């Protein structure tokens, strides 16, 4: 624990906390954990495994496109590979790593809490995520992967044109995955609202937390619409309903509307945690507070909110009337303003601070470069005539890889380096870190920038090959080479971090002299996070020395130590006035059991065994009853 235990009273309190919060050892401990840090680590490694799978799929695509008329993949295999690549990267990598790994691990620490508001629900969301990923990959393993693209348009995805189980794996897997993210987002919102350290009023909450508040609300409202679209699809496919079938009064565009009402907020869900990570890293490495703090906080919320009003910009080429599309074009143009506010704030903070370009900050500068270019190509699409020319070309592929890979993943990679010392207690190798950044940055630019040109030259996306005489070959070769360079950069990161896990220099509590509260405690943090709930009077708690001295005095006096049980304080939503002390549950077998029961149910739904699915659902209900029969103070 960071605060020095100078008196016997303080030491006794810390000893009591250590005993009360002791974790169950071994594998069983990991399977039944409800500790947000352990759950964050579980999410991290699982999502990195899926990143690897998605990366292999990407390299297969680029190898197939290395030259015209190649036969590395058949057309059917190509369709399955790009579909799995998209589904994996979005649902099984970037969202889980941002929210499940970074969010889970860091949020309670940044708000000065001991865990999330609903620790068992937190564990459930991990096990459901892992199960949903395995579920989808079983489809690939049995040769029935989805192959209609990550947005899965009907009628291609209907039973008539996709008769095998691939689309069912997709639909049921994503419903399952969606439940995981929905419960996680409810958990995040209640945690942010109620578990902030007393004194952390909304104007004193770190910007990272604002990003996660925005993301959580977006998930809460977007995911049900996806679930509805997928339920309709499964009803059409399995029971012969006609939601999307024009011959019987349905409409294929219904799928597009429902999917994109989810799908567009989804892409802001992808980028918002990255904004949060960037706004955490910049102040640390430029030694100054963020410029225009309130506006940056607001911008994060605005992007999520306005993002619900732009969905039909994915449908500008479907024949909707202009008077309809104008609503979406207007919102699509206005949404650039909050992003612009953040860019201005980040750049001005760097320029007016004293930057130290260590690896994490390099990743953020790379992120800013990619976000500017990707954002500009995105805003070009808001012009309807432009969009109608470039829809379904490589220009779109360029845009979204710039914003997803360049702008969402770069901060994740930077964040892995930034928080590596906190999670492991060791420093990574700085030299290797810089080399891996430049390799990845170059690889990303070389892979994805030429796609803008290819799109303008008319190369359509999702084609397994291209003709020799279109003038596209050179760019494709360049892109494929770029992808191998990119892959090398990523491998080097993995090597650096794996090596440093064993051989890195000891990090100490706060190697970066950073402003947020996770740096107040040891590296790695103890199970109870903080021996004393920190005193807070600004969003840069670690840069307020009087408050940190107050912590030492509080520990000695036993104020806000809460060592009578497995306890954390709750406070009011807006001003964080101390309200109650609540008990947190500890290890529980019920979250993983419920995830298993639901997995059984989804498997039976896939195979159209309705009664057996019902049996698994009943079993799930019994598990829920058992779960609630142990109240937090008993658990």
């Amino acid at each position, binding site marked *: 624990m960071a605060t020095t235990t100078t008196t016997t009273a303080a030491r006794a309190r810390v000893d009591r906390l250590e005993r009360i919060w002791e974790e169950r050892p071994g594998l069983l401990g990991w399977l039944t954990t409800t500790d947000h840090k352990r759950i964050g680590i579980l999410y991290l490694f699982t999502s990195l495994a899926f990143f690897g799978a998605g990366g292999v799929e990407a390299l297969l695509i680029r190898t197939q496109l290395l030259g015209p008329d190649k036969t590395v993949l058949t057309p059917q295999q190509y369709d399955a590979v790009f579909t799995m690549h998209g589904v994996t990267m979005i649902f099984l990598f970037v969202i889980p790593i941002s929210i499940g790994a970074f969010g889970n691990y860091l949020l309670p620490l940044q708000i000065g809490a001991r865990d999330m508001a609903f620790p068992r629900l937190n564990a459930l969301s991990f096990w459901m995520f892992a199960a949903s990923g395995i579920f989808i990959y079983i489809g690939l393993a049995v040769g029935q992967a989805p192959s209609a693209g990550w947005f899965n348009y009907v009628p291609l995805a209907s039973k008539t044109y996709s008769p095998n189980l691939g689309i069912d794996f997709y639909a049921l897997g994503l419903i399952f995955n969606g439940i995981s993210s929905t419960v996680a987002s409810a958990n995040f919102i209640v945690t942010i609202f109620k578990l902030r350290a007393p004194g952390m*009023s*909304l*104007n004193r909450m770190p910007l990272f937390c604002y990003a996660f508040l925005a993301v959580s609300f977006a998930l809460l409202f977007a995911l049900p619409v996806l679930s509805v679209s997928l339920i309709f699809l499964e009803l059409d496919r399995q029971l012969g309903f006609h939601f999307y079938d024009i011959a019987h009064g349905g409409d294929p565009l219904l799928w597009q509307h429902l999917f994109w009402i989810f799908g567009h907020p989804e892409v802001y869900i992808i980028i918002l945690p990255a904004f949060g990570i960037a706004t955490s890293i910049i102040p640390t490495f430029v030694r100054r507070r963020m410029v225009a703090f*309130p*506006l940056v*906080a*607001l911008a994060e919320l*605005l992007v999520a*909110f*306005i993002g619900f*009003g732009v969905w039909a910009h994915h449908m500008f080429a479907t*024949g*909707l*009337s*202009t*008077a*309809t599309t*104008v*609503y979406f*074009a*207007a*919102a699509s*143009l*206005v949404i650039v*303003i*909050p992003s612009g506010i953040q860019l201005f704030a980040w750049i001005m903070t760097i320029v007016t601070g004293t930057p130290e370009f260590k690896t994490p900050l390099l990743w953020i500068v790379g992120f800013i470069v990619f976000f500017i270019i990707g954002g500009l190509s995105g805003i070009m699409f808001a012009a309807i005539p432009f969009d109608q020319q470039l829809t379904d070309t490589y220009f779109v592929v360029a845009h979204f890889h710039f914003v997803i890979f360049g702008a969402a993943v770069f901060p994740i990679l930077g964040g892995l380096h930034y928080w590596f010392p906190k999670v492991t207690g060791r420093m990574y190798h700085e030299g290797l870190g810089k080399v891996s950044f430049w390799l990845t940055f170059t690889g990303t630019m070389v892979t994805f920038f030429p796609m803008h040109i290819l799109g303008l030259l008319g190369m359509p996306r999702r084609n397994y090959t291209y003709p020799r005489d279109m003038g596209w070959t050179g760019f494709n070769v360049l892109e494929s080479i770029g992808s191998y360079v990119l892959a090398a950069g990523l491998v080097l990161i993995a090597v650096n971090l794996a090596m440093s896990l064993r051989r890195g220099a000891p990090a100490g509590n706060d190697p970066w002299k950073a402003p947020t509260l996770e740096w107040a405690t040891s590296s790695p943090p103890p199970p109870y996070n903080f021996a004393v709930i920190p005193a807070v009077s600004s969003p840069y708690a670690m840069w307020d020395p009087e408050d940190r001295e107050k912590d030492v005095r509080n520990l000695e006096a036993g104020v806000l130590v809460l060592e009578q049980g497995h306890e954390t304080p709750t406070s009011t939503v*807006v*001003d964080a006035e101390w309200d109650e002390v609540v008990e947190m549950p500890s290890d529980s077998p019920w979250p993983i059991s419920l995830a298993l029961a639901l997995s059984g149910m989804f498997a039976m739904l896939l195979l159209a065994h309705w009664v057996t699915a019902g049996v698994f659902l009943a079993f799930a209900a019994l598990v829920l009853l058992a779960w609630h029969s142990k109240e937090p103070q008993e658990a």
Partner: protein
Amino acid sequence: MSATRRKLPLDALQWFGLLGAPLAWMTQFLIGLSFQFAQCNAAGTTWSLPVHGWAIAALAAAAVIGVLGLGAAAVLYRTISSADEGEIPHAARLRFMSILGLTISSLFIWLILMAGLGATFTDRCVQS
């Protein structure tokens, strides 16, 4: 002067400044689109809905609420700025929220105008 200030419902001003304009835009958006979908599809051959009328009405109502929201945020900002140290509880948080309200209301007024004027001046059910 400070007696009048103390009578102002600062929390209400805060929330209206933050939420008034966005909710007005959301309502305008939903109304405008509902009429578009109802008229510009097959069912539109069986009725003739006042799409433009509703678009203009929604634009006007939303713009008014947006401006009121901006006003609420502005009043809150001025009240906090001109108050003495410690006179108003939670002044820092209220000031923070008023800045958010000023920004959010301005942005949404702009969006309401763009969307509403765009819909008003384009042909009803034609893809141009």
